[in-house]
């Protein structure tokens, strides 16, 4: 026996080494769902990560510092022009923000009526991506923030362009983020136009695919994909990507999704550390029926007819129940578009003052409130009209006729809409408070 072992000593050691690792691997795979397995391999992971990440952190900081020195103090060419462009852009965005705020306020009111819960991004922490797993089969990255910064497992990670992944391992100053294109990740998604829901999964090649979409569904290339909020990780309405190639054949479609975030070149990300979930204020809405609210907000017929207004007159097609105005680039924290009461409905507490009467003989139709709750959420939203120049454009955008959802009674009523002045009549949207860490709040 001794001779045998002595003769095959090296092979025996090889077999033992492989066998031990196989046993350990099998144990981890079997207990993969339990916390014990995580704990059993945690020590080695902590050692390895602690050995590698300080160097990564140092290099990234050096790189960032050098870049900042160059860009902030040395290379300032074109900054004045860029500043002017940004000022112009800011003004345009401010106008658009007013419109979005109004849409969001209306969406929230309806959510309250329908008993929806909604989530807002309340607090985020900016983090630098310092490394990866180094393996194509494990698409994870490391960020330079950990438990001391308030990071916890399961927190969603986003970038300016779209969602990135979720935190799966946290150490004191480093966290591991599982990217959405890893084959073990899954994200609940919804298509912006068709409202088709699906689970976004990664493939071994790093591609993103929309899983289990029936072949009879109509999925168009280029359509935006948003988070649906169904995974309980990502808040609803965050950009995920756009539909790429759609292959038919078999029971399910093969839908490829191009990620919005540059998953291969991540540098800085935001970790959502706090989500605020707002319950509908049932006390406020229970005392008043939807019909009452709707009737209160509809334009009233004045006592005596006035001259038709030249501006602000809009024809509402068939009903005042409309679909959401889908604003491009859903900002995090802004409510996801949902079927809303017509965009012309003014803000709460604001009594609309029609500048033109309903012509005599025209019956003003009010949709029965009972239909409010039965508005199908899968109806196609209507693209909002682009913002016009100036404040008048904003007013126009808020009073555009929207499409009629299926199943509502057509009435084809012409109603003179008030020329809304949203900047004055709309109460400011409740925005997320400033991050107390000083990092970027959403």
């Amino acid at each position, binding site marked *: 026996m001794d001779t045998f072992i002595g003769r095959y000593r090296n092979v025996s050691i090889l077999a033992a080494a492989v066998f031990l690792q196989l046993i350990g*691997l099998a144990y981890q*795979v079997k207990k993969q769902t339990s916390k014990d397995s995580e704990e059993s391999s945690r020590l080695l992971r902590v050692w390895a990560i602690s050995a590698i990440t300080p160097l990564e952190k140092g290099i990234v900081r050096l790189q960032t510092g050098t870049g900042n020195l160059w860009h902030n103090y040395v290379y300032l060419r074109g900054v004045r022009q860029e500043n002017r462009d940004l000022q112009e852009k800011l003004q345009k965005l401010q106008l658009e923000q007013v419109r979005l705020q109004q849409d969001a306020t209306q969406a929230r009111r309806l959510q309250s009526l329908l008993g929806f819960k909604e989530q807002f991004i309340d607090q985020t922490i900016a983090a630098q991506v310092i490394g990866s797993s180094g393996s194509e089969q494990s698409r994870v990255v490391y960020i330079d923030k950990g438990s001391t910064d308030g990071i916890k497992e399961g927190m969603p990670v986003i970038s300016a362009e779209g969602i990135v992944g979720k935190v799966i391992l946290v150490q004191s100053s480093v966290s591991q983020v599982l990217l959405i294109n890893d084959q073990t990740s899954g994200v609940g998604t919804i298509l912006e136009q068709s409202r088709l829901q699906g689970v976004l999964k990664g493939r071994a090649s790093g591609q993103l695919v929309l899983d289990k979409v029936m072949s009879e569904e109509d999925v168009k290339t280029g359509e935006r994909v948003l988070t649906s909020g169904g995974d309980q990780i990502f808040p609803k309405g965050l950009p995920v990507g756009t539909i790429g190639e759609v292959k038919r054949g078999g029971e399910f479609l093969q839908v490829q999704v191009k990620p919005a975030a540059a998953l291969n070149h991540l540098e800085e990300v935001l970790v959502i550390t706090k989500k605020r979930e707002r319950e509908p204020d049932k006390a406020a809405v229970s005392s008043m029926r939807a019909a009452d609210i709707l009737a209160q907000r509809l334009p009233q017929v004045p006592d005596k007819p006035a001259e038709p207004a030249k501006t602000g007159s809009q024809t509402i097609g068939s009903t005042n129940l409309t679909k959401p105005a889908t604003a491009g680039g859903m900002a995090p924290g802004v409510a996801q578009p949902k079927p809303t009461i017509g965009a012309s409905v003014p803000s709460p507490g604001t009594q609309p003052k029609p500048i033109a009467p309903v012509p005599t003989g025209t019956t003003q139709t009010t949709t029965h409130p009972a239909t409010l709750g039965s508005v199908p959420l899968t109806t196609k939203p209507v693209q909002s009209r682009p913002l016009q120049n100036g404040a008048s454009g904003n007013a126009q955008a808020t009073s555009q006729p929207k499409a009629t959802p299926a199943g509502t009674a057509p009435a084809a009523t012409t109603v003179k809409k008030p020329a809304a002045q949203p900047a004055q009549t709309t109460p400011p949207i409740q925005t997320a408070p400033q991050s107390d860490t000083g990092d970027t709040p959403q």
Partner: protein
Amino acid sequence: MAVSYTSREQIEVYRFSWPVAILIPLLAIFLQAFLPLRFSFFSIFDLPLLIVIFFAMARRSQVAGLMTGAVIGLLQDSLTHHPLGVYGIAKTVVGYGASSLGVKLDVESVGTRLLVTSGFYVVHQIIYFTIARLLVGLDLHWVWSRELIAAVANAVVGVLLFTLMDRLKERA
């Protein structure tokens, strides 16, 4: 001494100082984790594997080779979110094989290094895919063209790397 196809002068056994033996694998793992973020094409390379092959062939000790492979492989595993051992087993076998080959062949020439490195890359990938698919349950697809291209790319980088690292060798 094992039976060798090389002359006695060619069977040089080398050793490495402790700092080199520790820092070089760590540096390789660091670069493997860091560079693909900046240069996505870099993910085709497997620097830790090249280090395992180099150390194993230079030391010409099967036990040292498989231990080096196991340690580097497990460290590489620990940076992923998969169970530990997938890279560990693959690199253990490669370390053992490379050191066994180092005893029998002249592995100092460029041609031999090219062939050995590309061959061991394929062996490594086969073991990795087998374990990852059968034991871990990953949905991986073997694409010969991709693996062969990666094998050649790794071999070319390996030859350059080995030439640099030859300077770190010390005669045992």
